[in-house]
């Protein structure tokens, strides 16, 4: 019988000893080629065909893309709308921005999940699996983009967010939103390729683009990346997001765990043995003192010594 490394680590983990070993969430390494999508907000016309396609693909309530009243206030995704387009008034005119899960290279949600219900797939999509999830919502606390959404009014709640149409991807198809985009504001390929395209667009038209790609480094890099003509804080992005991959923030603690697990019991056991020895020595001393005292008063009976 062969034991896979993963299984072995699983047992170790179960013992509470090695919950830290190796493997950061998603096994993201430099050599893994993740998929990527480039969102060029300078091209986006805010037609919301992506919203429509997304809802149809995933069985969510389909919005009317021609209803412009939705732009009156900034919207966020929710459990039944996994992508939304917002419009922003900026110094360079109106900019439309599609938002959805960013599919981080090292996803905070996936590393937070104690049952791997949130899973970073090898090719990039971060997906949720209901057969594992216990509904603790730690993924929601951890996600820097606040993308996992919850069915609070359901008795069997799901955690919902963009799945990157991973099943379509497996069939070799484009994500539904990318396919629906009429102006090629969305482009899908490998992450590396998308970065290259983004950089060349900035290089070729430096006046047209703000010199930054949102998602290149945010949270350690994400599969969805954005180009813009204005700084990103003007179009609804949190520019304060750390460049460090979020799982790194718990690493220090997790690395300390095995150390404490080995050193603490050893130290405590040593202390308790010392304490007991001292107690025994004290008792012996007391006994001697007692004996002396009794001996002074009267000769002690021989069998008392056994006490």
């Amino acid at each position, binding site marked *: 019988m062969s034991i896979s490394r993963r299984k072995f680590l699983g047992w170790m983990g179960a013992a509470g000893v090695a919950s*830290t070993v190796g493997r950061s969430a998603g096994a993201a390494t430099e050599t893994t080629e993740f998929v990527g999508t480039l969102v060029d907000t300078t091209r986006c016309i805010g037609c919301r065909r992506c919203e429509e396609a997304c809802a149809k693909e995933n069985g969510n309530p389909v919005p009317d893309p021609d209803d412009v009243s939705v732009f009156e206030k900034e919207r966020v995704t929710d459990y039944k709308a996994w992508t939304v387009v917002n419009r922003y008034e900026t110094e360079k005119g109106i900019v439309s921005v599609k938002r959805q899960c960013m599919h981080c290279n090292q996803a905070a949600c996936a*590393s937070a*999940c104690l049952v791997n219900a949130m899973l970073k797939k090898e090719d990039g999509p971060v997906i949720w699996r209901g057969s*594992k999830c216990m509904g603790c*919502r730690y993924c929601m606390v951890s996600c*820097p983009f606040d993308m996992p959404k919850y069915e609070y009014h359901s008795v069997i709640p799901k955690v919902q967010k963009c799945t990157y149409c991973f099943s379509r991807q497996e069939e070799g198809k484009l994500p539904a939103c990318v396919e629906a985009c009429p102006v090629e504001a969305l482009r899908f390929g490998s992450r590396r390729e998308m970065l290259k395209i983004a950089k060349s667009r900035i290089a070729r038209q430096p006046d047209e683009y703000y010199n930054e790609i949102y998602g290149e480094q945010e949270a350690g890099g994400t599969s969805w990346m954005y180009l813009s003509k204005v700084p990103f804080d003007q179009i609804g992005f949190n520019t304060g997001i750390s460049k460090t991959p979020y799982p790194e923030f718990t690493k220090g*603690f997790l690395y300390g765990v095995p150390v404490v697990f080995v050193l603490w019991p050893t130290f405590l056991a040593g202390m*308790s043995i010392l304490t007991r020895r001292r*107690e025994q020595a004290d008792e012996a001393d007391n006994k001697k003192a007692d004996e002396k005292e009794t001996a002074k008063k009267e000769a002690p009976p021989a069998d008392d010594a056994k006490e």
Partner: protein
Amino acid sequence: MSNGTVKALNQEIKNFIPFFLEELKPKGKIITPFNVISGITIFIGIILIIYRFAFGLGAATNLSDDFPWGIWIGFDVVTGVAFAGGAYVLTCAVYVFGAKKYHPIIRATVLNGFLAYVFYAGALLLDLGRPWNVVNPIIGNEFGYSSVLFLVAWHFLLYMMAQFVEFSPAVAEWAGWRKLRKVLGSLTIGAVIFGITLSTLHQSGLGALFMMAKDKIHPLWYTEFIPILFFVSSVFAGLSLVIIEGAISHRVFRDQIPEDHHATEEDITIGLAKGAAGAMFAYFFLKLLVFIHEHHWTYLGTPMGYWFLVEMIGFVAIPLAIFVEGVRTRAITPIRVAAVLTTIGIILNRLNISVIAYKWDAPFHYYPSWMEIVITMTVIFVEIWVFRWVVLRMPVLRKSPDWVEDSH
């Protein structure tokens, strides 16, 4: 084990069932103000719990996508577990360092700790959307080793077992299991050492849970040292609760407590206060270092800054000073006042990190619904009822029966 031992064990267990049924009956006065208030709360709470499971979390709580964790996590679990810290601190003092002075209160503390884990960690089930999957990290569907919560979940489970082993001699003495009592007593030191290790890790682990919420928690509270601060503060949180619990027990369970323990109570309380003051000093000092190191002066002039000062001065520095004064003058009342202030400070700190300073700048901030509060009170009252049931029956505060040889 010899054949005779097995037979004796069997007989002991057989006799237990009728004895247990007899013990289930209530003791003492039934209609008291406390019983009436807690009884009504528990009754309403049970209805609300049914309502929560019938209509989902959204129907009973104010939780939202912006605030996925409310007081059921922030108070019940995160704060409740800090208060349960007295158990590992005292077992360490008594069994590892031989501080025999605290032996009279060890069982009540361990019982309190054990029940706190059962009920407060148990309250987690109310908060889980899919509680039937709670066994997944245990049975391996799947093991999320990279998760702090995975560690915390396992530790809760293991520590509950360790605490049960620590308390089990009292159960055996109550049930009259003489043979089993010997076996269980010999396990105590192992369970204690294992329990302290687990506590060190999951008390700090509860803080490490929030490490990835870096951009969401106000910078005055978010620091990479949260795990260490949680661990250090669990020491004085636990000790303060032991002081308060002792003060209450001495009134409520007066007839349970042997005379010579009444005499040592003052001594014990002062000792606990000394321990709490030491840990609090370390904590305050650490907090100060973090504050200076991260250049947080500018935040102090903001409303959140004032709130931070309320927590740090009002509920850490001031109770610390009162503890020190109480120890110096050997005065019990100030020590108890300090203990109450300290526990309020712990509640503030844990709620600040998990709820109040979490997305402090959100336009619509979370506050608990009345149902969340009533259900939380239900959990606390049920815990107190069970605690009382056990104390009135098992040798928790009173002395062990005469047939017991060692003292565990």
